[in-house]
């Protein structure tokens, strides 16, 4: 995509992240999702005359923590402004936002696509209030409907520089941004419910040209998959237009999931003339030195820290690292299991990204709600490493724990009868029997087809009811056959 029919794409992203506060940004109404429509509203968030906004300290802290995490300069004095426009979901006729003096500026985030890390500039992070939710399906086709529960929920708007050069980079940027917000416990990152939303500005230009092409803005993209698809389609569309000698029109387009293409927003677009001015209802926001210093000191673990540990310190394979970093709950689970079984990080990672991940894939709460406690998994892997159970038996124990029929892996192994027997006489006898009765395979092995050993190991295990360590069987077989 970086060089596409002689064109390169230039992408900038605007992310709106709902901040995890209990109450709204300027009033005490609850922020919980899924309540009865219009039950979380009051004179302030409905913009009744005379009602005054009072800023929520927690919203400021979330935004500052995030700004610090991406290396922003924190403007210790920032200003709230009114962004004026009329829309049914905006009760006051203006949105309280920040304009020329945002809370955070000049950050940076490194994205890594195919092992090529690139810094992506973040122009600004500012605080604003969310709008209500419009519904267009109702009993009366001449009406639309509005639920204002979301109006006034705190948002951080995060604006990237036009530094992204491909849909893959855009998705990598969004994943990292989302992971940071989740690590900070500042946003739940739920794209379906709209708590992490993305608009994209995209243009194309001939490779080698430094001036930017005319951009379009893409809205309505609510999953990573759709971000990639919408950008790919829009880039192709723009290149088609230019290749045909046409001009790209500056407009807002929507991603149409069903038609699988972007289309212009219907109707005349609102004029982007918002007549911002400082909100006279709010004094400047001052983050004093002490407050800022405390937030700096309280810096929690970030995705980059975990990545460095898993990759650098523990040497885990890249796909495992990616999964354990992006899914914070899964990464936390890994660390907890590893603390019980510190000698074998690779085995623990393998269990967690495969078995635990499969078990909790669709569960609310993810790995944090896994029915197998991380401590129990650590203990189980310890049993495998000590040669007490084979990996096939360990898997049976895992499912026993997952089903809630046992909590102690050692007890479960005994109850299931999958503990390995340490009976070398029985093993030797079984190996001899298998060699005697598998003449054809033994000949193949001796003729150089070493892979038939797998079949022979299987035969021995079958005779012993799986209660021996396959590694041990393999060794003994080779010794006999190679003699």
């Amino acid at each position, binding site marked *: 995509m970086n060089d596409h029919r002689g064109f390169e794409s230039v992408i900038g992203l605007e992310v709106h992240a709902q901040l995890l506060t209990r109450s709204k940004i300027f009033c005490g109404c609850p922020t919980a999702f899924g309540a009865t429509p219009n039950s979380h509203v009051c004179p302030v968030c409905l913009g009744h005359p005379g009602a005054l906004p009072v800023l929520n*300290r927690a919203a400021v802290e979330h935004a500052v923590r995030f700004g610090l995490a991406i290396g922003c300069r924190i403007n210790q004095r920032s200003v709230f402004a009114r962004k004026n426009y009329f829309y049914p979901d905006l009760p006051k006729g203006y949105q309280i936002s920040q304009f020329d003096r945002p809370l955070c500026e000049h950050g940076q985030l490194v994205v890594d696509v195919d092992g090529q890390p690139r810094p992506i500039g973040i122009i600004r992070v500012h605080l604003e209030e969310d709008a209500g939710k419009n519904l267009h399906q109702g009993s009366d086709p001449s009406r639309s409907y509005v*639920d204002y529960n979301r109006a006034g929920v705190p948002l951080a708007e995060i604006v990237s520089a036009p530094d992204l050069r491909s849909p893959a980079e855009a998705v990598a940027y969004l994943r990292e941004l989302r992971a940071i917000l989740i690590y900070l416990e500042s946003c739940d990152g739920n794209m379906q419910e709209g708590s992490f939303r993305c608009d994209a500005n995209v243009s194309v230009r001939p490779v080698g040209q430094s001036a930017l092409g005319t951009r379009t803005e893409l809205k309505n993209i609510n999953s990573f998959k759709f971000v990639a698809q919408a950008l790919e389609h829009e880039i192709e569309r723009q290149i088609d237009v230019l290749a045909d000698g046409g001009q790209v029109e500056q407009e807002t387009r929507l991603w149409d999931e069903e038609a699988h293409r972007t289309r212009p927003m*219907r109707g005349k677009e609102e004029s982007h*003339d918002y007549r911002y001015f400082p909100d006279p209802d709010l004094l400047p926001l001052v983050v004093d030195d002490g407050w800022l210093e405390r937030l700096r000191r309280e810096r929690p673990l970030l995705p980059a820290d975990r990545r460095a540990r898993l990759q650098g310190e523990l040497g885990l394979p890249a796909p495992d690292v990616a999964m354990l970093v992006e899914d914070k709950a899964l990464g936390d689970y890994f660390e907890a299991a590893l603390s019980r079984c510190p000698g074998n990080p690779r085995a623990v990672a393998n269990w967690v990204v495969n078995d635990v991940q499969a078990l909790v894939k669709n569960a609310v709460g993810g790995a944090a709600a896994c029915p197998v406690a991380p401590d129990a998994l650590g203990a189980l892997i310890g049993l495998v490493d000590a040669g007490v159970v084979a990996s096939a038996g360990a898997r049976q124990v895992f499912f026993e724990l997952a089903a809630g029929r046992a909590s102690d892996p050692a007890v479960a192994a005994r109850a299931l009868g999958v503990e390995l027997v340490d009976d070398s006489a029985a093993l030797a006898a079984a190996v001899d029997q298998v060699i005697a009765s598998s003449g054809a395979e033994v000949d193949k092995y001796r003729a150089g087809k070493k892979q038939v050993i797998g079949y022979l190991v299987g035969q021995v295990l079958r005779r012993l009811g799986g209660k021996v360590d396959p590694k041990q069987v393999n060794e003994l077989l080779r010794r006999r056959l190679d003699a």
Partner: protein
Amino acid sequence: MAIGSEQVLHIAALARLELGAAEIAEMQRDLGAILDYVEQLRGLDVADVEPMTHAATLATPLRDDAVVTPPGAAALANAPARAGDLVAVPRFLE
């Protein structure tokens, strides 16, 4: 500083105001006078003055993140039209 009638109409449209010919002329005069005043201010040397966004010099007060039980249906009593829990508006397209 002169301000054209098209500019007045543009601003009026953004504010959803309908102005008659006499009102447009009046607005041109009033807005022009305000801009003249701003033009005077422009002549001042403010290089060493911190930009002011509010007449009060204090910092905005902050509240703790605590939920206050919302007033419920009373808050919506003045909505022009409702359908169940929802506020009904003339249909618009996105």
